[in-house]
């Protein structure tokens, strides 16, 4: 296991998502204040911070999942490859196909393993025939390191898998639509250490194809899997930089207190 891998390896410097002065309100509650973040392509970016600091809220803004909450309002600019994702011309449904999401609790659909993975390609019409769909399902399950465990029971219900397998199934499902960015909201918080290690390894492999944003409560996890880290506190982005620098040489005293366990 790659433990405490602090050296930085930022492969590309293309900016995928750019947030400038992003504000989020829940009714009158100002949940996110003036957040500026650049999400690089083919990079794992970690959001850390104490509970209720707004990191999940901000993550959900990136693919407009907050649209499902009526009282939520987003201001400022968030762009994906230079185009505002809150532009009225942007279809949030199309946007979410480009920016996939994996949730905190594994949430496989009440369908077979095969249909879970095939769900996205089917609704977006990504395949022309059954053979192509089979190929996508297989390659996604392989990428999610699940293929060998489930290849003999693809028609079994996805809800019958173990927690770690379910979460890897959800990752396979998310990458089946070939998103450009993959958002992960505490993907390992419901998993045991072994399943966590598998998912972390998977995240590292996914980095070669996608830009990954991960919200986590575990600083070790952030240090292990990410190249860039953003520290949120009380709705503010306190510090954002290369993971090695954040963990070894934080500039802000609040960051230092948090990573050394004094606040949070």
């Amino acid at each position: 296991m790659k433990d405490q891998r602090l050296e930085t390896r930022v492969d590309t410097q293309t900016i995928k998502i750019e947030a400038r002065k992003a504000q989020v309100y829940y009714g009158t509650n100002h949940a996110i204040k003036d957040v500026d973040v650049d999400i690089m392509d083919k990079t794992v970016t970690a959001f850390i911070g104490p509970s209720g600091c707004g990191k999940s809220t901000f993550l959900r803004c990136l693919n407009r999942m907050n649209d499902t909450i009526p009282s939520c309002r987003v201001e400022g600019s968030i762009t994906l490859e230079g185009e505002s994702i809150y532009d009225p011309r942007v279809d949030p449904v199309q946007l979410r196909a480009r920016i996939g999401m994996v949730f905190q609790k594994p949430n496989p659909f009440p369908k077979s393993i095969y249909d879970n993975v095939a769900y996205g390609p089917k609704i977006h019409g990504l395949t022309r025939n059954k053979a192509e769909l089979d190929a996508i399902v297989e390659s996604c399950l392989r990428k999610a390191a699940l293929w060998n465990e489930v290849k003999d029971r693809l028609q079994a219900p996805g809800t019958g898998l173990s927690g770690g397998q379910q979460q890897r199934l959800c990752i396979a499902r998310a990458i089946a639509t070939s998103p450009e960015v993959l958002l992960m909201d505490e993907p390992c918080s419901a998993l045991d250490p072994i399943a966590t290690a598998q998912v972390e390894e998977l995240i590292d492999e996914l980095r070669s194809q996608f830009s990954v944003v991960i919200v986590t409560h575990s600083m070790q996890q952030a240090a292990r899997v990410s190249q860039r880290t953003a520290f949120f506190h009380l709705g503010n982005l306190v510090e954002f930089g290369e993971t090695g620098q954040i963990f070894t040489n934080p500039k802000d005293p609040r960051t230092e207190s948090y990573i050394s366990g004094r606040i949070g």
Partner: protein
Amino acid sequence: MSIGLLSLIILGLAIAGYVIGRRKAVAQVEGDIRKLHSLPPFYGRITALLTAVPAFFLIAAWLLAQPLFLENKALSLINPAELPAGKSAELVMADVRRVAAGLNMLEARGDDVGPLLASPTALKSALNGAGVVLETEPTPSTLAATAALRDAGATSRLAMTGAALLLALAGLAFGLSRINPEYRARNATERFAMWLLMASSLVAVLTTVGIVASLLFESIHFFRLYPASEFFFSTVWKPQFGGGSSLGILPLLWGTLYVSVIALIVAVPIGLMSAIYLAEYASRSTRAWVKPAIEILAGIPTIVYGLFALVTVGPLLRDYFASPLGLGNSSSSVMTAGLVMGIMVIPFVSSLSDDIINAVPQSLRDGSLGLGATPSETIKQVVIPAALPGIVGAVLLAASRAIGETMIVVMGAGAAAKLSLDPFEAMTTVTVKIVSQLTGDTEFASPETLVAFALGLTLFCLTLALNIVALVIVRKYREQYE
């Protein structure tokens, strides 16, 4: 002693048991209640329960069993040779019961009934005066049976009072004898409560068994008088109270299913779609008034729906659909009853489905939306499949309601038993015929009357089968969510 007084005495004993039990427990530890296993009220409570509950169970069981024993005894005294022409022993027993009840009433008023028993004429007039009207003067064997019934009744009542009081006192003594500081009164109360709750649930089960048994016995009675093959396979329903009826269930069953199917065709899409709207799209404020508004439909008495069918829907269908299209000119039709019944069962489908759809975890919706599915794709492919077992249950519940419905059919579809495919023709259902067979002026032993029980049993089997299917579907497709 009357039941009321007896109950009061037992309750009094129970209260005494509570007070004494509590005192005794406290006295045994000389007021230091920390030395008791349980708090003092538990010692009182278990004593009171042991006093009252067994005694009340005894009374209930005795009252249920008593008539069976007494009537057998009285029945054996009726001389078959003395039966008037055309009257069975059961009918005479009805007289015996009424005379006995009348005499009890006279006695309760303080009259001396001794001389009346000697003279049938005087007895008849005295009973007439008391509001119990007899057709004929009671025969000697009727009188003998009456006397036996009353004697046995009085003895039994006395025995019951004694036994119940004894049991209560025994319970009280037993409860008090068990009290000592180590006695786990709290746990005993808990166990007692569990048994009490179990007995309550048993009442519902036993009632069902009783209903089925009575249906079954009367149906067997019917099938002795009328061939079962005729009943199940004949396509003619033509009861004649002089005898020689054709009692085929098929036309009635056909009518029942036809009306129910139309009702479900109306109710399932409307109910399901409104449930989806309410659960997935409606804002909280809309939902707050739309849902109760739909549920009001379930509170409308079915006779009002019947009126609606008779006065509004029937003529409307006849004037604007059936007549212009040349499909018939009857205002009572399967269509009328089916449509109105469909409206009646909408709330069953919509309200239950709404609750079930709401119970689907939000994480599944998020998962689907997060993959770029639209809300309607999410509903169609994720939410509805997840909620399907519950929705099927809701639909089958609605079906059971539709099959058992009577009033709307009487007023909307008419009373003519027919086997026809035309939805604009008058037809009738099993339930309607049960009512019409039992509301006649006939004796209770002819096949024309008893057929009602066979119809009821068939209907019961039908709804039971539906419920079992629902259960199997729910079990098979149930998804486990945390």
